[in-house]
């Protein structure tokens, strides 16, 4: 028991020189721009980009005008081509019907067993066909091509 007092006990003492001071003050983040600088930068970038956007916009307007003018210019020609093909097809349909129904008793070309479609118009006035009549002599594939033209196009 007497030897215990000779040995130096291990104690948890402060380091020599004392503790360093504890930093308790706030450390805010480093700010690169102030608030006014940010607003000014935003306005400046907006003005610059508006200027650049307007340059491109003028060019796009010119392109749109040219495309529109070209479409308007060729539209009558395309319409005329379609009408010509339509009339040619009407002629071909009439010939096909005449040949098909040659031996059917009571059938006259352009009528329903002799009964005219519209009774009170002159006999040679064009009666525009409905879709089924126009495609009456066609392959099912061509029929579907036209009937479903908007499905996956």
């Amino acid at each position, binding site marked *: 028991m007497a030897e215990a007092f000779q040995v130096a006990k291990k104690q948890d003492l402060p380091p020599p020189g004392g503790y360093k001071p504890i930093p308790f003050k706030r450390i805010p983040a480093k700010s690169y721009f102030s608030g006014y600088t940010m607003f000014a930068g935003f306005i400046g970038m907006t003005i610059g980009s508006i200027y650049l956007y307007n340059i491109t916009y003028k060019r796009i307007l010119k392109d749109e005008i040219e495309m529109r003018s070209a479409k308007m210019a060729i539209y009558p020609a395309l319409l005329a081509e*379609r009408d010509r*093909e339509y009339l040619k*097809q009407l002629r071909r349909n009439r010939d096909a019907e005449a040949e*098909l129904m040659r031996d059917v008793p009571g059938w006259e070309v352009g009528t*329903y067993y002799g009964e005219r479609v519209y009774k009170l118009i002159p006999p040679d006035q064009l009666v525009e066909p409905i879709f*089924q009549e126009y495609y009456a002599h*066609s392959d099912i594939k*061509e029929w579907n091509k036209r009937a479903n*033209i908007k499905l996956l196009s």
Partner: protein
Amino acid sequence: MDTISPFFRSPFTDITGGMIDFQILGRCGKQEMDLMNCIEAYGLGRGIKKCKGYIDDYGECRTLTKQLKRFLAIRKERQRQIACGKLTDDRKYVSPRVDSY
């Protein structure tokens, strides 16, 4: 057609009159006009008998039944001829161009 208009016409019956016609944007404007002129000339009772042609034309324009029946007859005949072998490979069908209708 016998119930086109009420027996006594007054402003009260005219308020909810169904006055839709085909004169604007209508396929059958001409036929409807002829029919109405004919019925107005002869009155309703006599007009139904006398204006049969106009009634039929207007009905045909509205419903397109005769054109449909024509198509059905032609198609049936074509299928029959293909089935019994009268029409062969190249002359089986006459197809229009897809952008012509």
